[in-house]
Structures are given as structure tokens and as C-alpha cells.
């Protein structure tokens, strides 16, 4: 059970802890700076934070003392494109070979000390073997000609936002791209397979709607206890896989809407998952101004709408893809919003407590 949350926001990283008086902000790090993501490595206790300084670029920092002090480490860098090489997305924009944003940061397996995976905009996947002292671009994926068909969902260029390291076989890694579908390696990134049959892109012409390459995945999560089970929040719906992401089944019954960014799966029960729905893609606000969480406990046969403790009157909080977190027990979840709210539950979502309604816009929430 975790008593600590890392809350990455537009204006700093906030450590939130459960103390004698409940959950509260315990420390602010990088105050004033744009922290896009943070991660606590369960293998060695190190914390990582990704910053986007705008003018001064993207930086990574690591802390060995739970955020008391931070050390700047290396960022993933893209190589020079080959001489004369030019690639453009379908809009005709030149795809830059430059780091725009760190959008995913995950530890490797328990048997791979020091290994980290990092997903970025404009789509490159990187790994480190030395806790972020140096990074290597996964060329097998970047050089796949289909990668040039990836494109920006909400951002200008494609973003790799989800990295799932199989807890039973750390050489097997599944990643998801907005937009670019779901890809899987079984050999630590030497080769990749485009998976995700069954995903459906409503926004594409009908003949391309089921092309796995054209899927705008918002978030992909894998059940730690049952790695064959994946849940996926997509631009136009929710999908579930029970065969290791090879195929997905569309779930059309998520109340009150199938649109959203975030999804969490129970660490021990692959049938239990949570979503934070918003109205629809062109109206990214809670349905009827009521913040709710949708939960299924039976593999999407039925859903409950959880609202106890959440604002139900003119609340326009939007939860982004990395801003819903679950701890190792599956009892504690937390989510933050673009309007600076943060809520925690200790009973799987039956009741929620407000930690703050005045944080900067929340980009990512993670248990440490």
C-alpha cells in the first residue's frame, strides 16, 4: 500500500503524502517549472522527473532521497537524420528528429536493474541501462517505415505515451502511440510487431477504420498479475484485450461516455478497471459538469458510476492520460485534473477525498 503520490503539474512537482490528518501536499519541487511526468522506480527507490522548460528544452532529473534533492541527468537525444533524408507527415509537415517532450517513463523488469524506457514526442522510444545517465534510441522501431505514418493526435507530432513491460517476461514490451497504434516486442526491442487487431478509428475513412496503424490510443495499461490482459482508452472508445494485445474488443457501454484519456487496471484482477470519462472529443468536459469515475469489476459486462466525494455541480475538470494512478493493492487510486484538483480513494473508488482544488494544471499522477 502506498502513502505517497507524485503529482506533476504545469508549475511544479508536488509530493503528496498520507499523514495523521489525511492526504496533503508534503513538498513542492521545481516550483514554477513545467513538470510533465514523474516516476518512482520500485527497484531502487529512485524518483525521476521530466521537465519542459520551453525556451531551454526538455530535462530529466533524478532523486535518490525522495525529492529532497535532485540531480540533472541526460535526456534522450535524436541522432542527425541521414544526409538528404526528408520525412513528412500526412499533413506535409516535416517530422523533426528532435526531442519535443518526454511522454512516458517506465522502469525495466526486476531482473534488469538500471534499465529504463522512455517514450517521447515526436515518437521515438529510448532505453537506458544506467538509470538515465545515457540513452539509446530504439532504431528498430524508429527506422520502421510505418513509423513515418504516425501522426499527431492532439500534439503536432506523434507521441509515445504508454510503455508496458511484461512483469513475467521483461523482454516483452508493449507500447502505444497517439496516433500510431499498439506495438509489441518480444526480444527487448530488437524487432517489433504492430498489434491491435479490432481497434477502430471512427475518424478515419471507412476502409482505413480498422487499420491498426491508424489508431489514436490515448492510454494503454497492462494487468501486472495477468499480463495477457490490457485495457485501452482510445480517441473514440474503450477497448479490452485478453490475448496479450494481439486483438481487442470494443466496449461501448462505459457510462456516462466512452471518451476520455485515462484508464487504470487492478494490479491483481484483470477484470477490474477504471476510467475518467469526458463527454466527447469535441467537448472535453465532464458529462453534465459532474466529475465521475467509471468502474467495471466483471471485464466490462457491467459498469458502475462512482461519484461519492467528487464535485457534481458545474465541475469542468478534465483528467489527462497520465493523471489517473493506482497503487499496488488496487484499493488506492488518485486522479488529478487540468483545473488543479486532486482526489484520492482508499476503497477502490467507492468514496473519494479531495486533496486539493488549487494545484496548477495536473499532467500526471503516480504512486511512489
Amino acid at each position: 500500500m502506498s502513502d505517497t503520490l507524485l503529482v506533476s503539474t504545469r508549475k511544479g512537482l508536488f509530493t503528496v503524502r498520507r499523514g495523521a490528518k489525511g492526504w496533503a501536499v508534503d513538498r513542492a519541487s521545481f516550483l514554477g517549472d513545467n513538470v510533465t511526468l514523474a516516476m518512482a522506480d520500485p527497484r531502487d527507490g529512485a524518483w525521476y522527473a521530466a521537465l519542459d522548460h520551453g525556451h531551454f528544452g526538455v530535462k530529466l532529473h533524478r532523486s535518490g532521497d525522495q525529492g529532497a534533492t535532485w540531480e540533472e541527468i541526460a535526456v534522450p537525444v535524436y541522432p542527425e537524420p541521414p544526409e538528404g533524408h526528408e520525412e513528412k507527415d500526412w499533413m506535409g509537415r516535416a517530422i523533426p528528429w528532435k526531442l519535443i517532450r518526454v511522454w512516458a517513463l517506465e522502469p525495466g523488469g526486476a531482473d534488469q536493474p538500471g534499465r529504463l524506457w522512455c517514450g517521447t514526442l515526436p515518437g521515438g522510444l529510448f532505453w537506458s541501462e544506467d538509470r538515465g545517465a545515457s540513452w539509446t534510441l530504439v532504431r528498430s522501431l524508429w527506422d520502421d517505415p510505418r513509423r513515418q505514418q504516425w501522426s499527431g493526435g492532439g500534439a503536432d507530432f506523434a507521441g509515445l505515451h504508454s510503455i508496458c513491460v511484461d512483469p513475467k517476461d521483461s523482454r516483452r514490451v508493449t507500447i502505444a502511440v497517439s496516433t500510431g497504434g499498439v506495438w509489441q516486442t518480444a526480444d527487448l526491442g530488437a524487432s517489433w510487431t504492430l498489434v491491435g487487431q479490432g481497434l477502430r478509428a471512427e475518424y478515419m475513412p471507412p476502409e482505413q477504420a480498422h487499420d491498426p496503424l491508424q489508431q489514436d490510443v490515448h492510454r494503454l495499461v497492462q494487468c501486472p498479475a495477468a499480463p495477457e490482459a490490457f485495457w485501452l482508452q482510445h480517441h473514440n472508445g474503450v477497448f479490452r484485450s485478453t490475448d496479450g494485445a494481439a486483438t481487442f474488443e470494443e466496449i461501448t457501454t462505459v457510462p456516462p461516455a466512452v471518451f476520455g484519456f485515462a484508464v487504470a487496471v487492478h494490479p491483481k484482477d484483470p477484470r477490474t478497471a477504471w476510467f475518467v470519462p469526458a463527454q466527447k472529443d469535441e467537448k472535453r468536459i465532464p458529462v453534465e459538469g459532474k466529475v465521475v469515475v467509471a468502474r467495471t469489476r466483471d471485464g466490462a459486462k457491467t459498469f458502475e458510476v462512482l461519484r461519492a466525494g467528487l464535485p457534481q455541480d458545474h465541475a469542468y475538470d478534465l483528467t489527462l492520460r497520465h493523471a489517473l494512478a493506482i497503487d499496488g493493492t488496487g484499493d488506492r487510486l488518485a486522479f488529478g485534473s487540468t483545473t488543479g484538483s486532486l482526489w484520492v480513494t482508499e476503497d477502490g473508488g467507492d468514496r473519494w477525498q479531495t486533496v486539493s482544488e488549487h494545484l496548477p494544471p495536473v499532467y500526471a499522477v503516480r504512486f511512489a
Partner: protein
Amino acid sequence: MPRVVFTANLQRHVACPPSEGEGATVREVLGSVFARTPRLEGYVVDEHGALRPHMAVFVDGVAVSDRARLSDAVGPGSEVFVMQALSGG
């Protein structure tokens, strides 16, 4: 030797007091400063050595024209200012 001054906003992240650089182009002069403070480089230029989009470099009050290769000439008595363009909220 040319003098190099960095925007005060950068000082918050990396200590970079005014200093003297060596070389006849902006790339050479900044490179000599980066050699002394390696962490500074990534804050001013991207991974390919081009000036970051919202950064600006002035040589004796004139904005450099070659933002990709920083080939603009720098005289022995020049002042090189590394500034930021304002953006964001």
C-alpha cells in the same frame, strides 16, 4: 576576447555568469563556454547544435542570422548576448 552574457532566466537552472569566449564565430565562442560548463549547452541549443526555437543570440546588438549552424562572425571585442524570446504563460 569576445564577452559572453547569458539571460538571467537561465541562471536559475545553470550558473552562467558573464565570461570570455574564444573563437571567430558564434558556434566557436559558445562552444568554448560550453566546454567549461557542459550542462549549459542543452539549455541553449538542441541535440543538433541549432539554437532552440525561443532562444535568441545577439552579436553586438544584431540578432544572428544562422540559427542552425551559428556561423555568424564574432570579432575579438564583440559582445555575445544569449537571450530568450518571451512566450507562454
